[in-house]
């Protein structure tokens, strides 16, 4: 059954997919830095949502939907409207290109992210493995 995006269940399923991915584990073996994804309102989604994804040494030890971006400390915050996140999850927008064109706004050490392009790609691949309901 498809899981609604954004939701606590969705981010937990992404975390589970990452923990099952050998390719992600190897590509992010030295990675340290948690993320908060902010889903901003647009014509397709009226609310603001905050998704926390813990990432440490190729694993995702923790993930949850949170009430605001300060509820959990994170090294990286990425904000974008709902429809832009949808494009990323569906593989229609490369997240690096999205950041370069400011469609995705990243706060944090951007060069650190750029040093792990394979890991970024693996996260997107894992997103595609989550059966997602966008509320259409």
């Amino acid at each position: 059954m498809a899981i609604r995006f954004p939701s606590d269940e969705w981010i937990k399923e992404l975390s589970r997919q990452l923990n099952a991915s050998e390719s992600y584990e190897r590509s992010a073996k030295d990675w340290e830095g948690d993320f908060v994804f902010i889903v901003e309102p647009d014509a397709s989604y009226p609310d603001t949502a905050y998704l926390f994804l813990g990432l440490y040494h190729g694993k995702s030890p923790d993930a949850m939907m949170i009430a605001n971006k300060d509820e959990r400390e994170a090294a990286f915050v990425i904000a974008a409207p709902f429809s832009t996140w949808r494009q990323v999850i569906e593989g229609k927008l490369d997240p690096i290109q999205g950041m370069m064109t400011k469609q995705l706004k990243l706060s944090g050490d951007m060069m650190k992210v750029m040093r792990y392009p394979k890991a970024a790609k693996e996260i997107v691949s894992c997103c595609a493995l989550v059966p997602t309901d966008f509320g259409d």
Partner: protein
Amino acid sequence: MWYFVSPQIVFGAGALDALDELSGRRALIITDETLVELGLVDRVKAHLTQAGIESHIFAAVEPDPSVDTVRRGVQAAQDVAPDWIVGLGGGSPMDAAKAIWVLYERPDLEPAAINPFIPLNLRQKARLITIPTTSGTGAEVTWAIVLTDTDEQRKMGLGNRENVADIAIIDPEMAAGMPPRLTADTGLDALTHAVEGHTCAWHTDITDGLCVSAARLILSYLPRAVADGSDMEARERLHNAATCAGLGFGNAMASMAHAMGHVLGAVFHVHHGRAVALFLPYTIEFAAREAPQRFAELANLLGCSTAAGEEGARALATCLRDLYRQIGNPTSVAEEGVAREAYEAQVDKLVDDAFNDTQMITAARAPSFDELRQLFLYAYEGRPVDF
């Protein structure tokens, strides 16, 4: 949404005369010792003098410039306080010039912080001119900066759209003295830019034509320029082709052959153009099984094949290897002279570092770790890719 950035481009025989029309007080020429000895720096200085601009020279740029070299160049810029910075040479001096310019303008930044995500607000103190003396890197028109972290034996891909040059001067006379080997290696660098710019996941309608045009010119004129360096028609068309390829891939992206070539160059000190070109046919064959369309289309456009799909894509790889043999370039890592034992000892590092190269993300077919390892091993042996 995407961007296309370019300097003003002055090209053709006599293009260096454009320097005579500049306004300014002081210029800092970033270059290397060889170009000083060859008299090319004096030619640029003469034009700047004609424009009433005082020239200073920083000629300490080495191949694969290091962060330390860039820091010394920034100090030179701070001492001279130029209003023009001139990057004169191949990719290394031009990349160093871009980095020196950025850090002269923004002394608050570390070199590693030059990235596409922040506003730099350049052009407060100086502007940048690039003058290539090789026909290959396209660095005269791209905003990419490659520096070497000598401690980690790793190349750092830096850059920001703002740090593209203001003016690029594409004068074939400046490349006329290149020896055959350098002509071949740099020409193949440009060809790899053209092919990867056309076939990578980030290719665009705006850049496709530039890449095809560049590839056509290189296939036609590179053998002539290698065979006879005094063939100025071939030199000029090749010089233009390298700039077209630079505009093409610089506004799209390079891809897997660059990621693999970068790490081979960093670890075994193989010339950049030779390294990236060497891997290109293997990456095409790897993509051919699952994503052949763009490669087959390019093979058709270049007259390599009329076949579609995997057959067309593989024909492009064959076409490239034929060119390499014609101009005396290696088609395998073994032919390049890298020792098998040393290569195999480093292959895991090559795989990990290639995956962490930003060019890898645009691969038409994304490899797994095992597939990339196999690709490196096939490229060593010269075995056509069959997986």
